[in-house]
């Protein structure tokens, strides 16, 4: 581990690939025995939403995690910070997502600390795409698929950016909103309706944008069995501005929900 001979190149994964025994700690392809008749065993996070607003970005998510028809957990945290200006909202396999987030946080920080410069925006996006792509074999076997939505505030251009992904790691940048998880499909039309009737999210103020996204989440909970409502536990809601990432307060979330 103490590499007094070769200088590091900032690759966090290199620390482990040099020692094959630790390789399975990385969110890389996991060989899964192809046993006939196995049923889905992993826990899934469900609906996450990211939108732009006037001063940055908002991420909201329900708190439910399910395994098949069972509600595993109703206080899941699915909006996670990757660095001071980037939020990743995770849907799909909960175990895999959490591991991936842990990996990415370490990879970004490892690069910045060892190379004395932050990893570029494109470098970070590439790292995420690679992790999703590496997970394809597992996803094809019906286990461990995860789809994130990434929101990041670009301090150079002073604007928010949202990216969503397909299961192969294909990356798409969106102008207004991104959503993922089982509840995201039924509310797709509602996003478009809001854009057409109320104008773009990116022109809304913070409170309006929060109210709209929480309403969308509420509709998702109504239409999708795997998405949790807000009755028992409040949804997670965070925002990013030029000043970094902040949590919405409980009072703000309640006000937006009309309580």
């Amino acid at each position, binding site marked *: *581990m*103490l*590499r*007094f001979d070769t*200088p*590091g190149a900032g690759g*966090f994964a290199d*620390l*482990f690939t040099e020692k094959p025994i*630790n390789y399975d*700690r990385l969110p890389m392809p996991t060989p899964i025995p192809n046993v006939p008749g196995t049923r889905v065993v992993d826990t899934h996070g469900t609906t996450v939403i990211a939108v732009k607003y006037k001063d940055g970005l908002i991420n909201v998510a329900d708190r439910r995690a399910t395994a098949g028809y069972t509600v595993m957990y109703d206080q899941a945290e699915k909006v996670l*910070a990757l*660095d*001071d200006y980037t939020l990743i909202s995770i849907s799909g396999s909960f175990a895999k997502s959490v591991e991936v987030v*842990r*990996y990415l946080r*370490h990879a970004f*920080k*490892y690069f910045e*600390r*060892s190379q*004395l410069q932050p990893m570029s925006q494109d470098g970070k996006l590439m790292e995420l795409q690679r992790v999703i792509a590496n997970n394809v074999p597992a996803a094809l076997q019906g286990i461990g698929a995860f789809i994130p939505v990434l929101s990041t505030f670009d301090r150079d251009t002073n604007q928010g950016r949202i990216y969503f992904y397909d299961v192969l790691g294909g990356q798409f940048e969106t102008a207004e909103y991104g959503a993922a998880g089982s509840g995201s499909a039924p509310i797709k039309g509602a996003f478009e309706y809001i854009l057409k009737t109320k104008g773009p999210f990116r022109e809304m103020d913070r409170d309006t944008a929060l109210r709209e996204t929480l309403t969308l989440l509420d509709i998702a909970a109504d239409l999708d069995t795997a998405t949790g409502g807000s009755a028992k536990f409040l949804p997670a809601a965070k925002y990013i501005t030029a000043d*970094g*990432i*902040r949590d919405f307060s409980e009072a703000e979330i309640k006000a937006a929900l009309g309580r």
Partner: protein
Amino acid sequence: MPSYSPYDWNESIQQRNEYIEDRLKDGSPVVAMTYDGGLLLLSARQTQRKVYEIYDKLMFSAIGNQSDVEQIRVAAIDVAHAEGFQRSPDDVSVQRLVSFRLSPAIKKIYSDPFAQPVVLKGIFAEMGKTPDRDRLMLLSYDGEFSTAPDHAVVAGTAYAEDRMREHLKSETESGTPTLAAGLRAALYAWGVGMKHLESEDRADADYSTDGEGPKDVSAFIKEHLGKGWIVEAGVLERDTTRESRFRLLSDSELLETTGQYTQG
């Protein structure tokens, strides 16, 4: 093959120390101390960066050969990140890092008469969950390490370090300083240490406290900042909503400290 006697060993260790100490002598001193909001590391430099983030609650600075400093820095980062990822960030501790990983490796190189020694004296500063669990560790070129409370310094000579510590002690006696007070004391201590180092070449300078008056030290700091030396300070903040607890203070944040030397 020529034989290698205990005498040779003694001789070679001595020469090694002389070689290393001679190269460390010109290093710009580093000051570490606790302040009411976290930990502070300060030094002044000409071109190369000196204060580094190692892990979430761990920072590092050193004097020595720049490529040696780099190697120890990167090795520390590697160890900390591998451990933090495989177990938990809470399992990364300066005590484990320095005493079990870095020190033995450095000691091994130091004891090998045919290896180029690591020219370095470094400070690791770890912020604990509460102020009483903060920990400062010093690591030297021979693998020797020690823990210091409240404040710690590294400088090119033991005497310069003594004088700096003496000064910091009197500054921190009245309690944990604020960031502004800490920066002021740290920069002044840097001046005390650096001034001693620069006068070491004078035959009469050894073990004297001459020229340590506030006016002399201030003039000395002023002269260096005027010549383009840059004050560099990094902090670990205990209460912050930012993802990174470490940050380098900006020029404007340091202005209050450097201003008294650069203005007027």
